[in-house]
């Protein structure tokens, strides 16, 4: 269906990067397949000066094929937007125009004129709700006409997290790695134990004495981009809550929640965590975290090492004083 893709005006509404990039590259690929010498230009709405478009969008002597992509069309100035509309009224055969518009209130007049003129309108709305993310992933997995178990979609979502690009790439990886229906077992074979790491998850494992678990999370995280400061600050927060709960006495969680200004579930969880800790241990843990905070803010050469050493010190502090 390359002819369909190469409609004279394609409008992409939305700002979900992945979807926009896919739509744009689909069109460019189709145009290249049609004519390998096609001239592709991509412009940012905010960079387009009046007159720039005339250069690209006027008839040329040799009528070579051209593709023009205008990103962030909502940032076009008044004059340049008028130039786009004037071109649309009299489009050229050899030009394929793609306009990407965020779809917000900005540049709304341009958007509605484009919508009535566009041969093809695609939606690239940002995916925010879990249900939408699930639909997206399911569609990705079914792309080749494969059979997908609904539970497998859920398992993959849980394992990979919320980033759309990562979801799309893990889906295509899974499709090429497996044959036949996609099942929970298939997902687990490739994605077991991979959870989204964050500072609090690491801190939780550390204060519960699970050194291996905490280190594993940190290592996973450092595969992507470990934010050392988030680990130290989350650990400081967790230890602070523990110290407050520990010194607040043996009241029911509901009462303590009011006193400490914490939600009741957090009080209960913290009460569980603080078991097995002594004041001396808390003190040592605090000092380890403070030292590591200085280290990750430029005090140490190797920040990864500073974080791991801190986790080790915290887990050891847990047993101290008993």
């Amino acid at each position, binding site marked *: 269906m390359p002819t369909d893709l190469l409609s004279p005006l394609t409008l992409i509404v939305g700002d979900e990067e992945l979807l926009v990039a896919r739509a744009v590259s689909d069109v460019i690929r189709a145009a290249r397949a049609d004519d390998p010498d096609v001239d592709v230009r991509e412009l940012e709405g905010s960079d387009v000066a009046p007159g720039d478009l005339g250069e690209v969008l006027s008839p040329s002597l040799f009528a070579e094929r051209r593709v023009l992509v205008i990103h962030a069309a909502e940032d076009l100035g008044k004059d340049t937007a008028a130039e786009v509309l004037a071109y649309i009224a009299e489009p050229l055969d050899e030009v394929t125009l793609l306009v990407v518009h965020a779809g917000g209130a900005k540049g709304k007049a341009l958007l509605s004129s484009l919508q009535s003129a566009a041969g093809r309108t695609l939606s690239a709305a940002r995916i925010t709700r879990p249900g939408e993310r699930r639909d997206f992933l399911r569609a990705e997995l079914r792309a080749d006409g494969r059979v997908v178990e609904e539970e497998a979609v859920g398992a993959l979502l849980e394992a990979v997290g919320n980033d759309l690009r990562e979801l799309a790439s893990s889906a295509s990886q899974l499709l090429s790695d497996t044959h036949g229906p996609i099942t929970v077992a298939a997902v687990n074979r490739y994605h077991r134990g991979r959870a989204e790491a964050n500072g609090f998850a690491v801190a939780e494992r550390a204060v519960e004495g699970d050194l291996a678990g905490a280190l594993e999370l940190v290592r996973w995280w450092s595969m992507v981009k470990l934010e050392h400061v988030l680990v130290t*600050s989350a650990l*400081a927060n967790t230890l602070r809550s523990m*110290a407050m709960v520990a*010194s*607040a006495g043996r009241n029911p969680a509901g009462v303590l929640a009011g006193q400490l200004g914490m939600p009741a579930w957090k009080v209960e969880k913290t009460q569980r965590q603080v078991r097995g800790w002594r004041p001396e241990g808390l*003190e040592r843990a605090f000092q380890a*975290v403070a030292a590591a*905070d200085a280290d990750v*803010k430029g005090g140490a050469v190797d920040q990864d090492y500073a974080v791991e050493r801190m986790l080790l010190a915290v887990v050891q502090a847990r047993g101290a004083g008993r």
Partner: protein
Amino acid sequence: MSVFDDLVGQQAVVLQLQAAAAAAARVVAGDDSTASAMTHAWLFTGPPGSGRSVAARGFAAALQCEDRGCGHCSACHQAVAGTHADVAVVVPEGLSLGVAEVRRIVAHTARRPTAGRWQVTLIEDADRMPDYASNALLKAIEEPPPRGVLLLCAPSVEDLLPTIRSRCRLVPLRTPPADAVAEVLVRRDGVDPAMAAFAAQAAQGHIGRARRLALQEDARTERRDVLSLPRSLHGVGSALQAAKDLVDAAQAEAARLTKDRDASEREELSTALGGGATGKGYTGSAPKGGAGALKELEKRQKSRGTRTSRDALDRALVDLAAFYRDVLVVQLGTGTPAIHGDLGAQAATIAGATTPESTLRRIEAVLACRTALDGNVAPLLAVESMALALRTG
């Protein structure tokens, strides 16, 4: 009366500067026989509050005055106030003194003095010059214009590049003794002698801080609150609470100090950008780029606020370290006078209940906390860690 009257407890320095001013006056009169007592680059060093900039301004006045710093002629007044045509005073406001600013200063030193005496350039906080800015200054120090004088102020010699400090004549100020500070408070600010003695002692030689303690009730309350921390370290929970109170107090103090200035700066900028204007040609909206300028200002103000609250916290930690020093003095029975004399009873109680070794460890903990704050550790975390260390000793 002399321009050096406000320079407390620095007799040696005053003599040196007066001799230099006298030699400078002879140079102006055409007599070069004693010219070696005067030179073109001076570096004033000393702990905060010792009067580096007071000494430098006084010297600038002594150079401009017909009578070597009489303290009552217009040249003296203008030089001390920083409005003299031949005295440029540079006070770095931001975190550093940039190379562009330094180049401008260098160009200024090369001018001929309008009053025919000396072209003085005074840089307060010269330690805030990054290396490349110092290098821009180096040329002016290496090949000085005939009547140019450069006065630099910094906490210590090590704060400047070796190339700069080796070309300056050093003026080392000492921490002024408490009785000299007290005497100034009584003479200049009319403070009651007992209060002056207390404030001078508690401020540990920092004249500005001593004056604030003597004149402002909230400064005294804040100090008392800080020094109550050692008594509220019963359990882990109360230690953490005390740490939080300390950090909150520092932030509140900073907010109080910066709030009015922030608001008036914002007001001025928005007026300059045409906010609130009426009449012909007024479009009703801020001109293009106005929002960006406001945001830039807010960013600067925020960094200044952070700096102020960090300074307040650092002051509190200095007081706290001095308290444990008093405890150690009691424990070792040296008889050295206490810094926080009004808290002698509390120091004695703590001294009786702990050992000198643990007191030393506590002082170490306070100093480690200052280092940590300097290294950008989250203030609450650093102070919490210190409070817990103070608890166990």
